[in-house]
């Protein structure tokens, strides 16, 4: 067990080393080598710990092991010559109302959209009901995150809200009138 863990750790370190080298010398070869080593390291973790734990370890451990490479490359900057004067924060009524609106949209409207959209999509997938519901549960936060990006990216917020309402209406119609399960 310890042996296989050590080999998997070495695989992760090797992949990070190759990524680091590709970054340092700007080489595509090292980058692909790093990607390959990373995939192999996930397999090694899976062999060592079983695939369920192995995938988690393989994906998460680089986030910890990368720090020696980052620290090796740290630079100390000189102190600033002058400190800027603090900029005032806008607490005008219009700004406050607009932020409250963003709260409403991002926490409530987008939740409704993401739940309905994820359910509509997952119920059309060729899985058993358990698989469809599990897919829906995984999709909801990802769709919600994507919708957040869309909402804040578009210039016209009313248009974004209107688009969400259209999506909600279409999904509701699908869920109500198309057979599921």
């Amino acid at each position, binding site marked *: 067990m310890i042996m296989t863990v050590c080999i998997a750790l070495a695989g992760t370190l090797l992949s990070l080393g190759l990524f680091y080298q590709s970054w340092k010398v700007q080489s595509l070869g090292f980058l692909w080598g790093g990607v390959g080593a990373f995939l192999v390291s996930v397999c090694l973790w899976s062999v060592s710990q079983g695939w369920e734990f192995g995938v*988690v370890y393989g994906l998460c451990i680089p986030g910890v092991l990368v720090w020696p490479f980052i*620290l090796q490359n740290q630079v100390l*900057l000189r102190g600033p010559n002058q400190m800027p004067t603090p900029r005032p924060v806008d607490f005008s009524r219009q700004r406050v109302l607009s932020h409250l609106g963003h709260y409403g949209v991002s926490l409530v409207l987008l939740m409704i959209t993401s739940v309905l959209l994820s359910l509509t999509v997952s119920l059309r997938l060729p899985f058993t009901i*358990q698989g469809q519901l599990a897919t829906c549960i995984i999709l909801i936060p990802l769709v919600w995150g994507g919708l*957040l*990006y869309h909402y804040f990216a578009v210039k016209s917020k009313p248009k974004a809200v209107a688009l969400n309402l259209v999506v909600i209406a279409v999904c509701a119609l699908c869920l109500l009138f198309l057979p599921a399960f």
Partner: protein
Amino acid sequence: MDKITKQNALNGHTWIGVFLSVGLYLVCLSGTLAVFYQEFERWEQPEITEMQDVSPDVVERAMGQFMAAHPQETDHFYVVFPTSGIPRLVVENDHAAYFADQEGNLIDEENVKFTNMLVDLHLYLNLPASWGMILVGALGAMICGLVITGIIAHKRISKDAFKLRRKGSGQQAQTDLHNRIGLWAAPFHLIIGVTGAYFGMAGVLLTLVSQLYFDGDRDAATAQIFTPDPVLEQTIDVPDIKKAVDQMATLAPDHQPIFLAVHEVNSSDQFIEIFAKVPGKLIYSENYRFDTKGNYLGTAGYENGNWGKQAVYAMYRLHFGDFAGIPSKLLYFVLGIMLTVLCISGVEIWLAKKANPPVLSRLWAATVWGSIAALAITAIVDLFTTLPLVAVFWLLLALCCICAMTLPTMTKPRWQQLSGVSVIALLACYTLYHGSDAFNLPALQINLLLLGFAGWVMWRGHTLLKRQR
């Protein structure tokens, strides 16, 4: 990607990160600590007898004594086994929980109010359970949104992948730290975001599905994922717990029992269910079911069930890192600290871009470091009083915010020092209260971490103060 796309993503990233910062920070901080909730439970009562395993006879004796001492009406009885992750034997009903020793004699009542408060802070932000869970679930989705917008917004994602520029005004260091953590720990953040959203959204989804397809019957919808209770018709009798526990050695010799539940107590539907951890799998457990007389009925079918069923049942362990003992917990703890640092540095970058408005900067420092002080003081209050801990914590946090708004001297290093002093005060009070038990394993494994944190944060505060002078 073009500049406008990146700028739009950055706008979204900033809004989510700044305007939900307090909730995100408190959930991340409490979640990081809650990785060790079992260790915190042991820490709260370090004097309790610990054991590695327990025989069926001892379990029966402990439950027998408990039933005799607590005859009040209950829907459930529970036995938590020493193999659950907490090496102690606990017997409980819906109203009270008691520890038992190696002979099955009842000892102290379980009293883990602080841990419960900490876990509730993570699960519900101490709000009413259903609304709080939906809000915290929404924060899970926000983490996914932050990962997506953060990666799109990163202008030099590959060029800066290994850069860390320290000192200077501090802004570049914060930005680099934020971006490096954000990039390299992104898979962990997505895991936490998706599994965190599950806890809040599962109820919403269940309600919707039950209304749409099961005539509003939530149990029928739940039964699609979670195996429903067996339908039994038996004479009412005392459950034969010993016989059920005895069979586990042959039914699942490599599965560690977590806990035993007696459902539908004193009814013809009464049955015994033993939850056992499945080696190498992320599902919470496989559940072995027995009738009142201890006859084996079958499993709930998670271990070899449909992949969808397993995926949903794996959310808990995947979220809390409670799947491979201390190694997985330590990994989640370190990555949890990084996620918490990500929340802090994100807001500090935003404040630095506004050239650090004094009141807002102090308020944020009070939230970050004051909440740690508030948690430490809440734990002290729990040692000596029976005050409601939720109220104590939030009052203390509100007090910190008021101090930050009214006292210009309360800058970040002062808050850091205050949180360090509070943790040291907690350690002193804990030692005073528990005496020599404060130096046994259940106490030391948390106390050493707290001591290390207190030392680091005091040093950090001192260094920052010196730099400011």
